[in-house]
């Protein structure tokens, strides 16, 4: 064997190593994890990972991998509660969580609407979404979740493209304590300061970006 072929074969082995041993994110998404209780994601989250709005199943496609894996770990520890996702998250291995999160992050999501913080907002929902209500210490949603609710970095997930009923359920989760996994408790105070009507209106605002200017 020549030195060169040794190097080539050696490199090929090294390169193949992680692939052979890493969990396959796409397979987990389409077929489920190694434990049968870890069901395939696409059954509820749709074949494109964009969620099923009518059922309130959220979009996963294009969400940050760090955010997704944190949620799965948080269902295991109970800082986020949801009856379907809890056993599912517990049935995934750490490697599988990492793999499926990376895969989902790589799927294309719909771009967030190009809503800028420029216009003076006359209706209360747009005002709350863009600028917040500082008399109640509520920042504008887009100040952390990005223009149009695009999401920012690994910690602030997109609101754009999420079903309204999912967003309502999350805001209510922070209000009733069934969701308490927000870093630095950044969401819990905001959610508790919002009224029931505002929760619904804000969810609609980001779920239906085509008509963000609709007056209540």
């Amino acid at each position: 064997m020549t030195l060169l072929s040794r190097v080539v074969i050696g490199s090929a082995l090294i390169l193949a190593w992680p692939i052979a041993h890493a969990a396959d994110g796409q397979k987990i998404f389409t077929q489920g994890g190694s434990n049968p209780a870890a069901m395939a994601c696409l059954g509820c989250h749709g074949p494109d990972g964009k969620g099923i709005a009518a059922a309130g199943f959220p979009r996963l496609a294009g969400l940050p991998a760090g955010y997704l894996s944190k949620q799965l770990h948080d269902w295991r520890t109970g800082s986020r509660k949801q009856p379907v996702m809890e056993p599912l998250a517990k049935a995934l291995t750490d490697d599988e969580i990492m793999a499926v999160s990376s895969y989902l992050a790589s799927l294309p999501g719909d771009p967030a609407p190009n809503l800028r913080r420029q216009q003076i907002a006359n209706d209360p929902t747009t005002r709350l979404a863009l600028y917040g209500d500082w008399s109640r210490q509520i920042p504008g949603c887009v100040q952390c979740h990005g223009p149009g609710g695009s999401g920012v970095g690994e910690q602030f997930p997109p609101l754009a493209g999420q079903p309204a009923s999912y967003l309502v359920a999350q805001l209510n989760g922070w209000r009733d304590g069934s969701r308490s996994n927000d870093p630095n408790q950044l969401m819990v105070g905001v959610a508790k300061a919002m009224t029931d009507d505002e929760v619904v209106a804000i969810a609609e605002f980001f779920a239906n970006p085509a008509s963000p200017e609709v007056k209540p």
Partner: protein
Amino acid sequence: MKAWMPTLLLLAVGSALAAPITMEDQSQLTVPPAQAAQFAPPAEGELPDNAFGKLVREGHALFVDTRRLMPDAVGNGMNCSNCHLDQGRLAHSAPMWGAYPMYPAYRKKNDKVNTYAERIQGCFQFSMNGKPPAADSLQMSALSAYAYWLSTKAPTGVELAGRGYPDVPQPQGGYDFKRGQQVYREQCAICHGDKGEGQKVAGEYVMPPLWGKDSYNWGAGMHRINTAASFIKYNMPLGKPGSLSDQQAWDVAAWINRHERPQDPRLVEGSVEKTRLKFHANDGVNLYGQKVEGVLIGQGTGG
């Protein structure tokens, strides 16, 4: 240990304990103690639908989306609304309604009576590290009109409760970089990044950079540790004002303001030391031109 060592140690401690704060510029800005602000700027719906209303709307857009709309004037990643929260409306966040009715006013910073437009030009030169638009430009008129409108029914020449950032007295033990770094990691990095770099979406900053080439320069008021501590205590983390202790606010302000940022545009003969003596020696508590852990602060980011 040699005899001069204690002296050196004392000097090192001295810089952290700092002499009584001499406020070159802020001394003129008498800020009433923090209290419930009485003044309320007009609601959005009160803006008339005419030529004046249109100019105010333009000014508002520039105020909240400054970097994108004024690329020639803004040389970093900042918007007006980064330091003046809630679109310049929020009490204890240097609201426009607390500033506009106080001009013209003498400022030691440039040793003359400044009009309101000249005051905003200062923001562009230092906080935005850019090139100020002309005082008679449309952009300046729009920004002034927006501030004027926010000040509707505010008395002229009266120091309103809620103006500026309320003073946060320097803690008796001074400040500490290590503790500040800890506060930064726990409370600030989630938005502003581990290295103060801020966060972008599609190439535009959503969360502003706190140091480095895209942040405020060494001539900006925010480079003073006392000013940054005041801003932080009353405005940060976003949505949780007042959650940090005075000590934490000073510690983290010192940590942020020990990092390099664009050079002071008033740099005297290329010398940090000359610039320190002329502009920084009596400007509150700041680190410009001092050595921290053997490194000269204030060399600029070169950008």
